[in-house]
């Protein structure tokens, strides 16, 4: 379903992703794990046509997104690391605008918005502005939105960042349910190893822009001779702490946090 071959992305002399290969099978939940700055988000941005790869090739459902970006985009839904909702619009308006952007016919749109908002327990709050929502509600709304155009692939970039255990648990239950009922292929990144272990069929560990291990959670543990995925992860990527320098986006985020209080 997703196929990446020798994928490279460099920014000036910094190599963010240094030649990675992987294959995600249809209907699979595939987790991409790695420390900060390992290249997870850059990879997702290349897969979702937001960044052009420096070299290498990508196929999404048999399509090359570099050549046919619009067709490729119709096939996936994405939940970004940062919220991408319009806070001034209501939950329903956010959904509806997404439906228009993805050319979902009006009648289908109305039905699917109702069923998705109901499933994600947001239907009662459909006419509230998103800025009044809690972090968990916003995440649920984003995932509901990503499903609106019945994508074949769902990208989740650290979807549970900053959520409480209840919301995290509920979110993964929904994702698994949709994976089973709609046969959606899921490509996710997370920092929480227990989540990856529980949800993912297969895992790739990326570090310094390269894939250092790939396989089912079971295989990774066997490979490293460890008992939990967390230990396996540390064995693979070492225990040193990665410092990312704050870029302008992080600074903006801080300003935004101040303003949103």
């Amino acid at each position, binding site marked *: 379903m997703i196929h990446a071959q020798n994928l490279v992305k460099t920014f000036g002399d910094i190599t963010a992703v240094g030649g990675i290969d992987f294959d995600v099978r249809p209907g699979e939940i595939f987790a991409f794990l790695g420390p900060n700055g390992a290249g997870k988000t850059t990879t997702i941005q290349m897969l*979702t046509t937001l960044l052009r790869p420096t070299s290498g090739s990508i196929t999404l459902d048999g399509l090359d997104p570099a050549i046919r970006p619009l067709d490729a985009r119709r096939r996936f839904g994405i939940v970004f690391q940062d919220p991408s909702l319009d806070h001034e619009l209501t939950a329903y308006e956010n959904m509806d605008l997404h439906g228009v952007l993805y050319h979902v016919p009006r009648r289908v749109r109305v039905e699917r918005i109702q069923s998705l908002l109901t499933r994600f327990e947001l239907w009662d709050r459909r006419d509230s502005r998103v800025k009044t929502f809690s972090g968990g509600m916003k995440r649920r709304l984003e995932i509901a939105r990503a499903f609106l155009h019945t994508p074949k692939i769902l990208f989740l970039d650290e979807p549970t960042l900053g959520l409480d255990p209840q919301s995290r648990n509920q979110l993964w239950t929904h994702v698994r349910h949709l994976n089973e009922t709609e046969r959606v292929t899921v490509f996710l990144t997370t920092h929480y190893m227990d989540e990856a272990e529980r949800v993912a069929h297969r895992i790739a560990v990326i570090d310094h822009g390269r894939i250092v291990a790939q396989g089912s959670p079971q295989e990774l543990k066997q490979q490293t001779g460890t008992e939990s995925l967390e230990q396996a992860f540390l064995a693979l990527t070492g225990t040193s702490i990665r410092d990312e320098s704050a870029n302008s986006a992080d600074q*903006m985020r801080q300003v935004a946090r101040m303003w949103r209080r």
Partner: protein
Amino acid sequence: MEVIYALWLREVKRYLRSRPQILASLGQPLMYLLVLGFGLGPVFEKAGQGNYLQFVAPGVVGMSILFSSIFSGVGLLWDRQFGFLKETLVAPVPRIHIMIGRTLGGATTALIQGMLVLTVCLIAGFRPDDFGGTLLGLLFMALIAIVFAALGTIIGSGLKDMQGFQLVMNFLVMPIFFLSGALYPLSNLPGALTVATRLDPLSYGVDGLRGAFIGQSHFGMAVDIAVLGVLAACFMALGARAFSRIQA
């Protein structure tokens, strides 16, 4: 078409829902209008130029449209880093549709803002010549809004952070305002200033507004319409180009 309309509607909804901001952005034009309008009035009258409030009101309307349309473009910066922009960038829609919807939405909100300021001017004692002129004035207001909303999109597509925004304000937007003849007549200026005012797009907007509202045009309204029309087309094209190059 549906996509352009949806994104246009989004901008307008966001504007109408931010009432405190609408009120706040009326403050600055009000200051110019009342403080300068009445403060410089006696001097202006002694210099034989007539009523300063009549003269400055079109300039203040032009200024408010300039500011709000540039801001709407710079809103891209906000949307870009952590907001809604990515959602539109991964949508299976040509970027140019997104850009047109956003820019026209920004121009529409700037036009509404301009009409609010015009209303305030009318309350303060500004009197346009006649009703036909007022309609023509609305056309100029729309042109100014489109020109600068497109310029805002060009700027917003290139900006990375808020510091850049400060630069743009101080070295682009404020000079555009001060060189436009919004506050003073364009005739009999020193040579360098004459050249600078002629290069300023807003000069033609304010001049057109003055021509339409009070029948005083320096360049002639046909020239004003032509210049603004050509600039609107150029800036829209450049804005579309800049917008299509945005990478996450």
